[in-house]
């Protein structure tokens, strides 16, 4: 049985030099791929104290060993670097087809180093690759860039690129692949822009081989059956998309509204998945090899927001909706389409506008600076400010720095609903204690997809936990964070883990790679990845003081709804979390722990 041999290419944008190598077995086995391998490369090769927008930062695009295979949802890849938004390590995951094409081109990992003198793009054609001038692409949005590259190179290329936001070093900018898919969080688009790297166009026509075809087919069939049988992946997500969560989260009183001032949005049903299906949905869409198909193709048929696109996803509906007090799918969808075209993270963008609206509400931000009245529920404002942010025009230049820098500038940093400088997503942790612990401890700042405690605490997957209790949550959070690190490294979509667990991922990874993994070993790998990320952050200057939450979540009881009266009891959970992680009292991995993990 042939073992997995991944290929890495290094592209030095300063010199134009490139180098191809085989990923060492030890690195593949111990870090799998995607997020894991990227974290290890950054930890080994990047000084964590550098300016993230300097040529010293490295930008890594990495697929996993299941990317491009027939594993259900096996089309994912990860973009990693030191984040300009947070100063932490960041890895952002994306679907679509681009990642699968990269592997079909015979490449797993691309490491970009240095900075090009002029705008460039990388063309990859079945393993051959070449840097080319992107001067005529510079300034174009992601859709026009994709169209132009496909016109010049051929329709069988898949494109990941930045838009104007990345070019202007907007700290919440992201690349967009396949026009509608985003490795959204942490400002990786700004790092791409800082390197004068406009795009990566990939054509891949080879078959991705697996080590044991028979065992892989069995594991693949078992996984597909479990995904189909699951109420969320088999029914909820295909029917309503991620927006199926809107009413559920709102009914639980944890749907952050008006910059987390409350957890109940009275107009939630107007922006729910159920309403979306009846109004703007035109058809469903799926990423590479995905049997779930949570993507939504939508259209605003009339009015000033008339337009067509994909999405919005649950998080985006929340960020531009409840977070800004907007109860109308039309401007929310328009702002979402704009984010895809301009290359912006919808969560951070919407939440930063929400922060600006509260700054305005409290008189910290005046009309002359805002450029207009900035009132809750203003659909025009969310659309206009999104465009201005990408162009760094007017107030947009402040929003481009993210909510923490914005709130600091206007004298109220406590109004930034962020952790480590990254905006929190669509769940108010006052009614989901374990999720609050995850928010505070996540290595990339405010983020929901690296330890989704909403599953057991709200949805009851795999078992129903008391969402207001703190006891035992430290172990749940640690295990969720570790397992998620494995999935992000594998090349599969995190949504599969509603239905699949360690045994199923082990079977897929073992048969695909030829490494004889066990469920215990893959959990250890997740732990290893988590600790490497943590070490990077500690060297960058982060400490236990940064494992915290916005004061509002710690001190202001939820004012109404099904979570009324609660705050996040972080102080009860954090010491236990450090202990269960095998860390010291200040949250630093101990020598014993690092030895155990082989770091």
């Amino acid at each position, binding site marked *: 049985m042939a073992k997995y041999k991944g290929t890495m290419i290094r592209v030095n944008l300063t010199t134009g030099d490139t180098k191809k190598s085989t990923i060492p077995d030890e690195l593949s086995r111990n870090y799998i791929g995607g997020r894991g391998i990227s974290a290890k490369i950054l930890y080994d090769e990047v000084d964590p104290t550098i300016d993230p927008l300097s040529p010293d930062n490295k930008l890594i695009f990495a697929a996993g060993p299941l990317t491009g295979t027939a594993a259900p949802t096996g089309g994912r890849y990860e973009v990693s670097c030191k984040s300009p938004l947070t100063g932490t390590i960041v890895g952002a995951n994306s679907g679509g087809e681009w990642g699968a094409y990269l592997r079909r081109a015979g490449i797993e990992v691309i490491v970009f180093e240095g900075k090009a003198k002029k705008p460039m793009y990388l063309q990859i054609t079945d393993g051959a690759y070449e840097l080319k001038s992107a001067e005529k692409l510079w300034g174009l949005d992601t859709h026009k860039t994709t169209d132009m590259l496909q016109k010049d190179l051929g329709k069988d290329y898949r494109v990941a690129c930045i838009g104007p936001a990345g070019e202007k070093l907007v700290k919440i900018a992201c690349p967009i692949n396949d026009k509608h898919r985003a490795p959204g969080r942490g400002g990786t688009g700004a790092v791409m822009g800082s390197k004068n790297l406009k795009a990566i166009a990939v054509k891949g026509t080879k078959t991705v081989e697996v080590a044991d075809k028979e065992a892989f087919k069995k594991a693949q069939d078992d996984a597909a059956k*479990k995904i189909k049988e699951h109420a969320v992946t088999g029914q909820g997500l295909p029917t309503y998309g991620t927006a199926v969560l809107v009413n559920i989260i709102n009914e639980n009183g944890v749907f952050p509204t008006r910059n987390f001032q409350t957890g109940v949005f009275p107009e939630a049903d107007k922006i729910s998945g159920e309403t979306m299906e009846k109004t703007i949905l035109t058809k469903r869409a799926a990423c590479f090899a995905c049997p779930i198909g949570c993507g939504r193709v939508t259209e605003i048929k009339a009015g000033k927001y008339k337009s067509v696109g994909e999405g919005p996803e649950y998080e985006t509906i929340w960020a531009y909706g409840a977070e800004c007090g907007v109860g109308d799918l039309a401007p929310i969808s328009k702002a979402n389409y704009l984010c895809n075209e301009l290359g912006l993270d919808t969560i951070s963008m919407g939440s930063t506008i929400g922060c600006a609206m509260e700054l305005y509400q409290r008189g910290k931000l005046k009309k002359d600076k805002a450029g207009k009245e900035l009132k809750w529920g203003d659909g025009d404002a969310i659309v206009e400010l999104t465009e201005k942010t990408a162009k760094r025009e007017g107030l947009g230049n402040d929003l481009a720095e993210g909510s923490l820098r914005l709130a600091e500038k206007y004298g109220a940093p406590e109004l930034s609903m962020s952790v480590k400088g990254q905006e929190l997503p669509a769940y108010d942790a006052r009614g989901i204690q374990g999720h609050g612990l995850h928010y505070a401890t996540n290595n990339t700042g405010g983020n929901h997809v690296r330890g*989704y405690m909403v599953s057991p605490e709200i949805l009851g*997957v795999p*078992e129903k936990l008391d969402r207001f209790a703190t006891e035992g949550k430290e172990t749940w959070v640690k295990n969720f964070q570790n397992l998620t690190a494995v999935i992000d490294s594998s090349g599969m979509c995190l949504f599969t883990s509603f239905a699949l667990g360690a045994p199923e991922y082990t079977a897929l990874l073992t048969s695909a790679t030829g490494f004889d993994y066990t469920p215990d070993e893959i959990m250890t790998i997740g732990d290893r990845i988590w600790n490497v990320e943590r070490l990077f952050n500690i060297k960058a200057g982060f400490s236990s003081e940064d494992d915290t939450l916005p004061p509002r979540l710690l001190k202001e009881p939820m004012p109404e709804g099904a979570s009324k009266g609660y705050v996040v009891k972080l102080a009860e959970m954090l010491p236990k979390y450090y202990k269960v992680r095998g860390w010291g009292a200040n949250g630093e991995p101990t020598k014993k722990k690092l030895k155990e993990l082989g770091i």
Partner: protein
Amino acid sequence: MRLEKEYRYIYGVWQYVEMILGELGASLEEVRESGSEDDKLVKIYEAKLSEATIRAEVVYEKKHVPIISKGFGKIAFTTVKIDATSDSPERENEIIDYFSKRLSLYTMRAAG
């Protein structure tokens, strides 16, 4: 000594019970199955291992649950009951503890 757990949504928890019995080196004496996956499926395992016997009962059932079911249709519930019997309470405890830890690992889901 008994271990009783309820899991939601997950299909195929009985596979994990079978895996754990295998890890313990148990020899299966009898497996009984009734019903169907579409409605209610019951699987009972009788097994022997060193100084102990195990009876494992897995009930998989699909039900409607108010609030959460909106858009999700029926949700799968699985109850697992593990009975370990031995002359040695320590041995019973050891088996139940092992089942508890392995079921926690195998049923863990991390979606987001």
